[in-house]
């Protein structure tokens, strides 16, 4: 109890915590900070929690590792997979029902596209730029860095403008494509992603292929989408499980 009541004065040290994490403490302050970590248990515990919160608000390598592990588990335990993703299940059921009704009233084509859109909505998630910004910031061009920050603030038009200033930067291309997807410009997004795929020697190919497939799904080019998802599912990459799921929901053998 005593410890909890001490939270409030100690959170006055937030500025110090932030500066320490950013490596901005001056030498004397740094020495004092380390001394406090050693000698003041409450201070140390507060900082420990602050650090954990700081890490958890960013997409980091460990999170990606844990996500891969989770996707392996989901693939082996389909029953659990359904429990963990009830919305997707609901979308799939809703989409099936919509198709049945549409067949009755002669609107099957339009409704199939509706189901594609629902699937797209279920699978497209705004990708955080945090991990890429932090892991590559030392080598990243300034316009790309600025673009990533604007992207993270959902200011997609301004982000694209920034990315266009560094046309040869593949990370910029990727996030430019993602920004275009957010704006509903799927054909232009595909163009950006295709550059990454054709380059064929970079870290973003998996992501680019996945998002191209989603763009095709969203624009009603079902055949192309399915071909792409099949190709991804045949690989052992990060998006394999998601592609298998989506193919299952598209009722593809």
């Amino acid at each position: 109890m005593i410890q909890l009541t001490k939270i409030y004065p100690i959170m006055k040290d937030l500025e110090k915590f932030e500066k320490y994490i950013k490596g901005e403490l001056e030498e004397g302050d740094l020495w004092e900070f380390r001394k406090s970590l050693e000698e003041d248990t409450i201070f140390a515990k507060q900082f420990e929690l602050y650090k954990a919160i700081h890490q958890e608000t960013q997409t980091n390598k460990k999170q990606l590792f844990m996500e891969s592990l989770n996707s392996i588990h989901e693939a082996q335990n389909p029953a659990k997979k359904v429990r963990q993703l009830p919305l997707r299940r609901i979308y799939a059921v809703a989409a099936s029902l919509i198709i049945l009704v549409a067949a009755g009233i002669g609107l099957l084509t339009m409704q199939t596209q509706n189901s594609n859109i629902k699937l797209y909505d279920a699978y497209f998630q705004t990708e955080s730029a945090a991990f890429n910004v932090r892991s590559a910031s030392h080598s990243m061009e300034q316009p790309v860095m600025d673009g990533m920050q604007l992207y993270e603030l959902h200011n997609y038009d301004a982000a694209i403008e920034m990315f266009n200033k560094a046309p040869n930067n593949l990370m910029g291309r990727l996030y430019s494509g993602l920004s275009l997807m957010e704006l509903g410009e799927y054909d232009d997004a595909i163009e950006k992603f295709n550059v990454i795929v054709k380059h064929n020697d970079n870290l973003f190919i998996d992501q680019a292929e996945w998002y191209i497939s989603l763009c095709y799904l969203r624009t009603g080019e079902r055949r192309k989408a399915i071909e792409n998802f099949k190709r991804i599912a045949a690989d052992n990459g990060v998006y394999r499980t998601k592609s298998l799921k989506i193919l299952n929901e598209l009722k593809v053998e």
Partner: protein
Amino acid sequence: MSEEEDKYSSDEILFGIKNHDRAILQYVYDTYFDKVRIYVDKRKGSENDAWDIFQDAMGVFYDYSQKQDFVLKVSFQAFFFTIIRFVWYDHAKNRRSAQSVVQFDMDTLPLEDDEMLREMLRNQIISKLARKHLAKLKKSCVLLIKYSSMGIATDLIAKKLNYHSTQAVYNQKRKCLRKLIKEIMDDPAYKNLSDYERP
């Protein structure tokens, strides 16, 4: 060591986990998850407990793998199950059950690794608690903390989230962090962490 384990050496597994090799991850899952399930089942734990424990143990091993000077002095299996015992002990402690069996397991652990392992486990639990309570926090608070963690300039945050000044951003962020830290500290799983206190 079984025939299946020979497919990859312990060092290959360590290297694979360190470098996020999906094939190694799949192999570790295929080889060890069932063993963990059996271990947990024998101690009256559920299927979900087994998955929680497996995930936490993998999280701890991942942290070990990222340490530059870390080398496996025993087989991966022996090391991994040492972690599993620690994680299970923590889990069972929270459920207030199976104490005696667990204490027996703990007694068999190699002492020299205790301190670092407890530290790693503590980090794993704290990360999980941070994630859990962040998920319960108001979205505006999460955004504020997230943008700040990313190093986005405070005036830009103020503009985006409609705060009238940078000081208002700072005050609100502190309020959000206070609430979050209090929630974590009030969580029974955090209170149980006293067992892992550093000397």
